[in-house]
């Protein structure tokens, strides 16, 4: 298993953000963590990647316990968090050089990998621009490059397609697919169901801090669109038409 999560839980004050989550992600999977806003996806990913200490539970990445062997676990994963900044007053190329050196990588290796990543992600023309001046799409792409630089076994991406233009989203998808084809594992979160349905082979559906269902995409949807499965599981949906009966009338 590339990722194994058991009983992960975390509360902030009175609010229970994650209430005991189990996940299993096999090696080489393109794994989607879906759920509405506030479902606990970001908190779960932060705990799995070692950025937020869980109250309870454990997480293993590439067989290594994240919270008892954090240094070793970090060598196996690449992270693209949501809502956390990069060192944005560096240019795109400087940021990659910086990231590589932080991980103690050989500088000629860093330079050649950074150049290739910038090329493939379409950032070669903006490599000397400060990241703070990048668009959202460019920012996500350079963050992805930074997460891939040390060739991790598992890549964790929190909302990588949020507010990203279609062209950049396409590029990101292509890079991720290539990564999984060569044996890498991708775990990403999203609240966009179509995206998950199209990209992933495995999903877990989260709501209110719990995993409601998990498995391969085909198992879960059983012939229906994934969105319908999701709405059935999460609740809510097609109600309340009558109360808006004035809408659209002239």
């Amino acid at each position, binding site marked *: 298993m590339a990722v194994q999560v058991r009983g992960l839980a975390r509360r902030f004050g009175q609010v229970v953000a994650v209430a005991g989550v189990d996940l299993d992600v096999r090696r080489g999977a393109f794994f989607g963590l879906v759920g509405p806003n506030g479902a606990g996806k970001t908190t779960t990913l932060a705990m799995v990647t070692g950025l937020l200490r869980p109250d309870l539970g454990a997480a293993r990445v590439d067989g290594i316990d994240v919270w008892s062997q954090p240094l070793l676990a970090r060598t196996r994963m690449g992270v693209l968090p949501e809502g956390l900044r*990069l060192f944005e007053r560096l240019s795109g190329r400087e940021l990659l050089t910086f990231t590589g*050196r932080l991980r103690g990588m050989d500088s000629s290796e860093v330079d050649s990998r950074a150049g290739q990543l910038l090329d493939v992600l379409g950032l070669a023309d903006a490599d*000397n621009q400060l990241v703070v001046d990048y668009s959202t799409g460019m920012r996500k792409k350079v963050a992805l490059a930074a997460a891939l630089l040390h060739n991790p076994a598992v890549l964790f991406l929190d909302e990588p397609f949020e507010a990203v233009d279609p062209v950049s989203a396409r590029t990101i998808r292509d890079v991720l697919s290539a990564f999984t084809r060569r044996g890498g594992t991708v775990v990403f979160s999203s609240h966009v169901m179509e995206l998950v349905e199209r990209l992933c082979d495995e999903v877990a559906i989260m709501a209110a801090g719990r995993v409601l269902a998990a498995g391969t995409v085909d198992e879960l949807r059983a012939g229906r669109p994934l969105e319908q499965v999701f709405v059935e599981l999460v609740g809510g949906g097609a109600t309340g038409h009558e109360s808006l009966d004035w809408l659209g009338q002239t």
Partner: protein
Amino acid sequence: MRLRLALLRGSLRGGAGAVARRVGFVLGLVMGLGASVAAFVGLAVSRGHGVLPGDLAVVLFSSLVAGWVVLPILTFSSDDLLDPSRLALLPLTRRQLLTVMGVGALVGVPPVATLLAASGLLPAVVTSPTSYVVGLVAVVLLLALCVSASRAVAALLSGLLRSRRGRDLGVALSAVVALSFQLINPLLRVVTGDGSTRGSRVGEDALHGLAAPLRWTPAGWLAAAPTQPLPTALASLAGAAVVIAVLLVVWERAVRRGLERPDRSGSRRRRETGLVPRGLWLPAGRVGALVAKDLRYLVREPKRMVALVTSIGVPVLIPLGPLLAGGGLTRSDLAPLVYVACGIALFAGLAGANRFGLDGSATWVLLASGTDPRDARRDLLAGDIAVAVVVVPVLLAFVVVVAALTGGWVHAAPALGCALALLAISTGVSAVVSVVAAYPVPERTSMFGGGNAFSGGNAGASLTAGLAIFVGMGVELALMLPLLGLLLPALLLPSTLLGILLLVVGPAYGVLIGTIARRLAAKRWAGRGPEVLALVQSAR
């Protein structure tokens, strides 16, 4: 036009930072009115001192206009009435819009303060009813000149000011303004010569020299008008009125352009720079990368530049006053001023006391890339090296320059030794503070305007941090005590031998203490990294 009042009321009422904003507003009110009353009185009592009142009026009027021109650059991001593109969506005709922006500029503390200060012209120079009327018109025209000049400049620069570069410029400029207050004091002392007759003569001459060219600016025309014969006076007023009209036209044009193509802050292509600044050797690996990042940030991130400039700049300027003004002291009396270097070192070291707060949520990058047991120590060491790279040359230059000016070379070596020791200790102690009492720093800090330094962040957390820094300073001074055994004899019986001894022992001792402190800090950073990250993430 009520918009301005509404905005003012809104900014004083709502939100989390309301108390801080109200305090800031009252402070601004008191300071603005206080300064203008002082200017009024200063100008009024100068009456009858030959050319002095005329010169004072010219300088005051010109500096008022200059102040109005600079102000929008500082407050642009927080003042919604300065930027036409922010009002573009309101259902207003262009004429209404211009009225809103123009009248908006006339409401608030600055215009009242300006009128009050400028009215000092009347008691200072008025000789007849005619000149009284001329003076009154001149004061009103001055306010019009201030407002039109400031709006025209703001509208012309709005493209630049709206961009990130412009906002950075505003923050950097506010540091310069803050620093210039430090310069005003010694300069004033030179100008007024501390009351001695020779000094005041020099001061008046300097003022006269300053006023001479300013007399030819529109502000100068207005200031001089009441003392001129009537035809010349009318010409001066008319001239100023024409300038105001031109400025208004420029402003109108710029606003129209701003409305027609709002917000296009383009990105320029930058020169390739590389992570490590040219001409600097840094070790490969994590430490080198972090030092390079910190040095880049010192130049590229205004809040860091401001912090460094104010923490180093203020103590550097301290000796300037006594050195320039003298005040009956001989050069050798001033030789101990070289020990101000110790103060520079102390404050510069404290700049790293919230290093993770300055990195903000980007701290996760350090956390996620720490893969070696020694990485935690490297993270803290790098921050301290970056400070040293900047501050050690400053200390050297300071000690050499002050020693050369005062001739007190015998104090140079012990002062430098002590300063380096303090720098090493203080960086190490602030490494401890930075992991124990980290707190979030707001992303957009400006010393002026709405996003002031007090708002945002967590007041409780920064209070704890302030306390931690205070305790840290106490600890640092306590850790310096062993060096007193060498320093006291060096102060009482200056000798080259003692000086050199201090120059060697001081830094060695400092580095030892600093290293021990950093080890303690690294242990905590390695164990509680996620908790530090949680502290510095500003509440979302």
